[in-house]
């Protein structure tokens, strides 16, 4: 029976090829646009989050209690229990430790406020692949740790190049100002606040400069499965005495808000598009039913069940929806794949993108849920659109339908 219903539905669609193609094109075009846009927007946000977590916050950041409030150098993390946890917990992919202090950087002609980051290059490379952000020079502190890696925007303001000499000054543990002369060995660009104010130097050198014999300011932790484990690990770590544990979205609430705003925006656009598309399908289905009133009347008079006629009409709507979805998904998927592989080069807006913390080449992401949700939305739109004409048909009597001109 299904084959007969399928044949009838297909025949009906073929008979009105123009309008069927129009509906299929409409669904395909709107899906293509929506999928591309959704993947690109999500890609933009993912890129911003990745830049922030890899270079600055990790998935989780650990500080000594009170440090985030006071930024005191004396408030250091120095916990054997934490070290044991970080080394032994299987959910943790990697971690790195930093000593941070606010200070001033000066060249022969200019000075600027900075944050000094005492880091271990190997740890940072393993944890956040910090080396990948180097845009000039090398990922090294040179012989005897006399080198420094600084943010690109800071380098530009200081007119400093690789090999330029800088002097950093900051308050040490005994509340005196310590200074050190360094040579720039590398310049990095992370598209975060680090570009403006970061001077990375060797962690041991930072200890000597700031007179910090032990302890660190921040531990950046990267998890194997961020979405699944972040809340549990935050709770576990918070149980260790003297620690404050922050998730990336607590350190960068703006990024979380961007993500939420983007999700809401996508939802509103998709809702509007599918409502309008549903109206298009409804128009075609209504006319298709109204045109065939006599045909349906005769079928009913000959003993065809209403449910069978209903199936034909529903199937027509679903066939158009599926064909539109298929075409739109192929084009949308292909566009997303291209944008994922090669990105969308928006160098023309590079300064604007930097203001938002984004790279000038934006890459899309492809998530299976885009397609599942789109399929569900298209099918729902088709179902609702076919429902009204069906109800109209259901109320009419076979004799009156046959008499319809």
């Amino acid at each position: 029976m299904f084959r007969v219903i399928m044949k009838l539905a297909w025949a009906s669609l073929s008979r009105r090829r123009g309008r069927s193609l129009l509906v299929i094109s409409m669904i395909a075009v709107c899906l293509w646009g929506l999928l591309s846009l959704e993947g690109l927007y999500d890609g933009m946000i993912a890129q911003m989050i990745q830049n922030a977590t890899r270079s600055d916050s990790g998935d989780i950041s650990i500080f000594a209690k009170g440090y985030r409030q006071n930024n005191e150098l004396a408030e250091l993390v120095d916990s054997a229990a934490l070290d044991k946890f970080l080394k032994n917990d299987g959910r943790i992919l990697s971690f790195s430790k930093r000593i941070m202090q606010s200070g001033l950087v000066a060249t022969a002609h200019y000075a600027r406020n900075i944050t000094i980051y005492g880091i271990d290059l190997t740890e940072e490379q393993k944890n956040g692949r910090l080396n990948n952000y180097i845009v000039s020079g090398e990922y090294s502190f040179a012989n005897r740790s006399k080198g420094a890696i600084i943010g690109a925007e800071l380098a530009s303001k200081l007119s400093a190049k690789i090999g330029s000499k800088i002097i950093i000054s900051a308050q040490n543990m005994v509340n005196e100002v310590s200074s050190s002369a360094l040579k720039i060995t590398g310049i990095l660009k992370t598209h975060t606040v680090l570009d403006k104010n970061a001077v990375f130097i060797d962690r041991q050198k930072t200890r000597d400069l700031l007179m910090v014999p032990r302890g660190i300011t921040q531990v950046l932790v990267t998890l194997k499965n961020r979405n699944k484990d972040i809340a549990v690990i935050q709770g576990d770590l918070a149980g260790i005495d003297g620690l404050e544990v922050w998730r990336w979205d607590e350190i960068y609430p703006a990024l979380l808000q961007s993500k939420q705003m983007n999700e809401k925006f996508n939802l509103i656009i998709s809702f509007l598009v599918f409502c309008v598309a549903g109206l298009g399908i409804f128009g075609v289905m209504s006319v298709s039913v109204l045109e065939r009133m006599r045909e349906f009347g005769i079928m009913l008079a000959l003993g065809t069940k209403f449910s069978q006629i209903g199936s034909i009409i529903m199937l027509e709507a679903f066939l158009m929806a599926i064909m539109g979805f298929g075409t739109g998904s192929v084009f949308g998927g292909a566009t997303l794949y291209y944008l994922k592989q090669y990105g969308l080069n928006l160098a023309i807006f590079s300064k604007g993108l930097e203001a938002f913390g984004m790279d000038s080449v934006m890459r899309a992401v492809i998530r299976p849920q885009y397609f599942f949700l789109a399929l569900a939305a298209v099918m729902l739109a088709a179902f609702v659109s076919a429902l009204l004409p069906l109800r109209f048909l259901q109320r009419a009597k076979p004799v009156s339908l046959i008499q319809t001109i």
Partner: protein
Amino acid sequence: MFIKIAIKNICAYRKRSIITVALTAFSTALLIFSSALMTGSHNKMLANAVEVYPGYLQITQKDFRDVPSYDNLIFDVKAMHRKLSSIPGIAAIGARFETFVLFAAENKTVGGMLAGIEPKNENRLSRLAQSLKEGSYLSDGDAAQVYLGVGLAKKLQVKVGDTLAFVGTGADYSFSADILYVKGIFQTGSFDFDNSTAFVNKAYFDDAMAAENYATQIIVLPQNPSKSDALAEQINQQLGTEYQALGWRKSMDGLVEAMELDSVFGYISLAIIFLVIFFVIMIYTLLNIMGRSREIGMMRALGTTPGQVFIMLWMECLILGMLSVFIGGLFGGGLTAYFHFHPIQLSGYEEQFKQYGLMAAALPTVFRPIMIARDILIILTLSLFAAIYPIFKVNRYRPLEAIHHV
């Protein structure tokens, strides 16, 4: 006659007409409101960002923006003032000297920006005075008194009346240090700015930093801020090649580009909605026109030319389109006017705005009749384009073919 027939047809096919009018009116209202919101919110964000501190027009030595060192200062501020006062279109002028120093309070030392400003002039150039949170704003007679950002005050753990020291490099590259009294604390809403900036009276700054008659930049408030670029051009011609005057669109090009990019993505999203609406209008027009194939065939058989059929159907679409954009225009315009005076509050998104230095979570729409007219014209054109295919399709039939069309 065509108008009469068109109106009759519109009334005869009421359902199709209502759906077409509703969809087109909705599109019109959506476009008017969205573009007014995008433009209005961007203008507001930019105005806030410009007015808080940077100013509408900045004059620097020509190399200062690329190499902001003491070698590239404005070395004769008084002469510059004299030259500028002869240029029409300027409402206010003020000199600033910005440098970076180490601030030290009792237990804390942090780096930050120390700027010498002319308090009275600055009052017209920026919103520093309006951003006062505690204590009081600077005055022209002040000596070692500092007006600092709320974040910086928090970092240094100082309050109004406390003292702090600064250590920096004077304009002659000499060592410079002094004790400052906290006169006031400001909060602009810009996270970076509030966390790292302090101001002193420029007369005091000049003594302390050996910067008499020097400035890193001069800020100009144009009488008409929207003509900042033109005024900058005029100033450049007067000052010659040694200096560079830049309107805010160029001095804050990153933020301007960010807003443009936001608009581009906004319009792309709208384009997808309009594309679907375009299809739906086309579908409804096609269904309506094809449903009248017999009637049109009959008209053609009785001698109506394809051109006359075209005009008749086109007239229907035009009347429907005009009615729709009128309704949509009224509705969209009304919404735009309302939110112009009652900005949309995006509470819960303040952090996002602060992070990007935008300082505004209340977004107004911009109410400009010319923009509304532009959006109305776009939708009217779209709706007329949507009718082209169905009209041509029915006109392709021969009279007999059309009469027999089922």
